[in-house]
């Protein structure tokens, strides 16, 4: 091969951004088309550096905006290459139109989305409002809770997205700063093992296959639009979950690290549980253990696969719990939070009658402290003991000023 391999230690101290950049190198991405934005920039910078140092054989396309960055990815993916990029917040907002093009055209692309608040007011810190903004865009979405998972899930994302039965682009989310700029130990794979997992890219309907000319990005009008969208949704619901299972299983065999659509921690006998995403899952796990020492049977449920949403697995994970908090790190703009709604939907036609309350927290990077979570678990336990909600259904955690509660 024309590029150099890199020797890695078994454990490297990497932040989430560098872990993702290393994954793009090891997957030997052919084209990265990117525009920088905090806090995701070091991912594409990392790829560019690997390229200039001859550690990857690929193209780095510098463009004038995120709209162009994703357009470049779409062109390269249609041409028949392994393609990835990274963005955050306003960058994703500008990219939004082209995200729907990518999924509608069934192009496998991996987007590292380093979650950051959306302006106004301007803020580079982490929350999930960008993740939530594109949740109906037809992309598969994975969520990493720490740098290790940002590394691992990139390989899984390529594997699932590029499967010829799938061909749906995938987002790998990680918390801005809390994961992207936090260095922790990451268990690495060597270059051959990592590349072996994703394999040599096999294009399908690629435009550079001149023997088999195809058209991409067609206009269908009313005649075929609905059938295309229905097919896309059908594949998300019927094919993608199984392919994710296969990728998770193969990855576990290779590394010993096991992933699930829904991650359950201390849930076997839990009376009260917190459902959340990102770094909050890990902080909550630590607090749940401490609550158990105080006699509160606390558990944590983390959503690993945000889309396709693991509707049945969420219902299964929560079926024996008495009180549950849905934690949404995004301003819901006049509704219940996304997780509150999804969980309520997943449970409504079941026999489970738990007490569900929603909490908005951590906007713009506001710290979710262990003390907040202790208070939250105590509130859930009080609900469970009373057999009814003692609070309104929607509250805010960690915001200054008078207590806010709705619904």
């Amino acid at each position, binding site marked *: 091969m024309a590029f150099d391999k890199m020797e890695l230690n078994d454990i490297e101290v990497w932040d989430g951004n560098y872990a993702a950049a290393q994954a793009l190198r090891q997957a030997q991405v052919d084209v990265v088309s990117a525009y920088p934005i905090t806090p995701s920039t070091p991912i594409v910078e990392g790829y560019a550096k690997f390229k200039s140092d001859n550690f990857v054989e690929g193209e780095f396309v510098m463009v004038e905006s995120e709209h162009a960055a994703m357009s470049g990815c779409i062109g390269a993916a249609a041409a028949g290459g392994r393609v990835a990029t990274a963005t955050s917040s306003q960058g994703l907002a500008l990219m939004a139109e082209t995200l729907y093009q990518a999924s509608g055209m069934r192009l496998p692309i991996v987007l590292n989305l380093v979650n950051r608040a959306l302006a106004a007011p301007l803020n580079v810190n982490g929350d999930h409002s960008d993740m939530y903004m594109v949740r109906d865009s037809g992309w598969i979405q994975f969520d990493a809770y720490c740098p290790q998972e940002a590394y691992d899930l990139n390989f899984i994302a390529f594997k699932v997205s590029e499967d010829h039965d799938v061909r749906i682009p995938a987002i790998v989310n990680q918390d801005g700063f809390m994961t992207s*700029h936090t260095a922790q130990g990451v268990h690495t794979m060597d270059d051959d093992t990592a590349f072996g997992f994703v394999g040599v890219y096999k294009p399908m309907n690629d435009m550079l296959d001149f023997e088999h000319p195809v058209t991409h990005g067609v206009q269908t009008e009313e005649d075929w639009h609905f059938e295309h969208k229905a097919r896309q949704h059908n594949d998300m619901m019927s094919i993608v979950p199984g392919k994710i299972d296969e990728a998770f299983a193969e990855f576990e065999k290779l590394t010993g690290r096991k992933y699930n659509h829904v991650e359950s921690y201390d849930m076997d006998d839990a009376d009260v549980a917190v459902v959340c995403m990102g770094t909050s899952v890990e902080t909550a796990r630590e607090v749940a253990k401490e609550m158990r020492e105080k006699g509160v049977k606390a558990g944590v449920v983390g959503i690993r696969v945000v889309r396709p949403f693991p509707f049945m697995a969420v219902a299964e994970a929560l079926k024996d719990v008495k009180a549950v908090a849905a934690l949404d790190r995004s301003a819901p703009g006049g509704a219940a939070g996304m997780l509150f709604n999804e969980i309520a939907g997943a449970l409504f036609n079941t026999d489970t009658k738990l007490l569900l309350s929603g909490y908005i927290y951590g906007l713009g990077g506001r*710290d979710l402290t*262990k003390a907040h979570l202790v208070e939250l678990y105590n509130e859930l336990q009080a609900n469970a003991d009373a057999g009814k909600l003692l609070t309104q259904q929607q509250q805010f955690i960690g915001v200054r000023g008078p207590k806010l509660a709705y619904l």
Partner: protein
Amino acid sequence: MLEIRWHSRAGQGAVTGAKGLADVISTTGKHVQAFAFYGSAKRGAAMTAYNRVDDEIIMNHEKYMQPDYVFVIDPALVYTSDVTVNGKEDTKYIITTHMNREELIQSQPKLEGKEIYTVDCITIANETIGRPIPNTPMLGAFMKISQMYDIEFFKESMKRILKKLPQKIIDANMIAIQRAYDEVK
């Protein structure tokens, strides 16, 4: 769990220092975390960086910390920010200053009653590395106060972490680490 908070100005190398320390500790089998608050991210702005060290995998991602050690690598920050915030009774402070402990406490009464160590990382860095980058000297001082590792092991580890720098700069950093180790009081 060992927790450290760095007080620095953006550009003085606190993030690099925190990540370097995490890297060294990780090679000994412990679990580590290194992160920072960037705030407005302007060179010269006051900022904080953090380390967590534990025998178990670190799952706590809260920014709130009651540090075991506070490192102050810019001498003015003891006056312009509260370096004692969220401190514990036994928190140890290693502060960059040209003053001795008594003069420092007299100039900043908030430090009265705290366990204070002083070392002039800025002068050490200027005289060895040739630039006022006080991060590696602070780690030398920390090795002395904490007795975490043998100083020779620590310097060998730092050579590996700094290996991409020119040899002259690596050598200067080793002298800086040793000087701070010897001079911290």
